[in-house]
């Protein structure tokens, strides 16, 4: 399947994963090249989230090969991926309870300045600047910096989760259903934002149920089912496929 020249930024080969005794991923292979937006679609329980989590090193048992920027990261501890420039927006938002919005955001950049506790005052200022920038993109967050994050509305939490992942300006982001719970007007803006990020050089691997919009912004699409990739094509091809339209898009 490999297409020509530049080595992919992220390459997943025959990835298998287990939760306890359940064998979930049966051998997933996919590639994302630098600067691409690639989308995974599939039914509930198909294994999309498990794929992302395995890439991030969050599934207890995993086999196969995952290379990022040319290095095998399958068995590296999760936190190392962050330092290589990989960011992750989990499904169900995973906002840290007990912290304010601002603290949740700060958490996103802490490690970027060289580990907990080692930062001096200067990078504090840096932090503040980043929060400022991100908050511009999500004005709702800006008004709520001091609110306890877990009391935010569902959509606000989703924005926070995305903003947190972007704080450290990652090379590549894995987004698990970012549009869930976001109002229509903002969903559109958000996808526009993804395109803008892509233009700025960020690579994106997306899991999305809003297939119509996802197809609009993606370069390529993988369809996951039963813990494996069952189909793979450029997005444009799928946009024109009536069967795909019928099965995945119409509501």
């Amino acid at each position, binding site marked *: 399947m490999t297409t020509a020249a530049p080595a992919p930024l992220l390459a997943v080969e025959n990835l298998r994963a287990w939760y*306890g005794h*359940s*064998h979930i991923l049966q051998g997933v292979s996919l590639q994302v090249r630098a600067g691409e937006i690639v989308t995974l679609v599939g039914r509930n*329980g198909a294994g999309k989230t498990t794929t992302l989590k395995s890439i991030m090193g969050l599934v207890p048992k995993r086999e196969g090969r995952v290379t990022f920027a040319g290095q095998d990261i399958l068995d590296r501890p999760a936190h190392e991926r962050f330092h290589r420039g990989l960011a992750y927006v989990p499904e169900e938002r995973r906002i840290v309870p007990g912290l304010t919005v601002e603290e949740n955001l700060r958490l996103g950049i802490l490690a970027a300045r060289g580990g907990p506790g080692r930062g001096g005052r200067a990078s504090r200022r840096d932090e503040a600047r980043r929060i400022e920038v991100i908050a511009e993109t999500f004005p709702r967050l800006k008004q709520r910096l001091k609110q306890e994050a877990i009391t935010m509305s569902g959509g606000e939490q989703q924005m926070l989760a995305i903003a947190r992942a972007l704080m450290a300006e990652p090379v590549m982001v894995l987004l698990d259903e970012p549009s869930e719970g976001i109002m229509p007007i903002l969903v559109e803006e958000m996808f526009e934002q993804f395109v803008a990020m892509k233009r700025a050089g960020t690579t994106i691997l997306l899991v999305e149920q809003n297939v119509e919009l996802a197809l609009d912004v993606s370069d390529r699409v993988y369809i996951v089912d039963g813990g494996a990739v*069952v*189909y793979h094509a450029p997005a444009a091809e799928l946009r024109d496929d009536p069967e795909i339209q019928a099965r995945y898009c119409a509501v």
Partner: protein
Amino acid sequence: MSAPVPGHALAQGTPLAAPRPGSGRTGRWLALASRHRVALTLAFLVVFPWVAPYQALAVNILVLGLYALGFNLLFGYTGLLSFGHAAFLGGGAYGCGIAIVHYGLHPVLALVAGTLLATFIAAAMGVLAIRTRGIYFAMTTLALSMCVYYAFYRAEAFTGGENGLRGINVPVLTLPGFLLDLLDPVVKYYAVLAVVGGAVWLFSRLLSSPFGAALKAIRENEGRAQACGYDVRRMKLVAFVISGALCGLAGALQAIHLSIVPIETMHYATSGQAVMMALLGGMGTFFGPFIGAATFSLLQDGLSTLTSHWQLFVGAIFIAFVLFLPLGIWGEVLARLRRAGW
């Protein structure tokens, strides 16, 4: 492209993580065992005194097992960690002891009196403690139980204070139709077993009742249980009180068994003991508390006869248990059986 499979993708072929009761050979055995858990527990306890080093210890284990069982209702099944159960054990013991020593009540009535006193203490503590949650709940119960402790400590005329309550002597138990010689350790064991057996049976009924199911739901997710229509506070209180009553019964039996009630019975260290026994045996398992009580007592007893540094070994064994048998002894046995039978 392949057509998406109907139904959910993993429904076919992939093994499921959670074992279904009743499938596989061991599974069937387990299902059977769990249906007859009361009978099994009792069968074990009937032969137990012949295995234990001496009968008095066997009675201790019965009593402590019941105590841990009562505690387990709260922690294992309802998810409330209490550090105040000593107040119930002690309340039961003092209630029973005082009834016999100061009022000359019949031992059977004294058992009832002890259980009632414990129930009352549990209700009073529960009403206050239920307002808090998590570790704060544990600490509130601890604090309240220590207040009870000091109250009993100071009521020296009734409780004997630091010296403990002495003179709970019941050499023979007169029941309609026959006499039991409680100075005979074997007779005493089976007399206590009769009471404990009754309590275990009631407990088992409780667990398999709708109320038991609701408690587990509360343990899992209190907020959701409430949204489903359960009056969570009241149910927690009821569980607290029932748990207190069971522990109180254990205390009352202990008073008759040892013929004294030490004030230490009410100290929080005794509450800690319930936690340890329940964890050792296996939290939220039916038989676990008895296994835990037996292990705890046998370990301490056996080792302290062998060496005066027994605490070193008890400590090390505890550590080993946690590291290698995280589900508790009985919990681990169950899990192993399940896995083997899969």
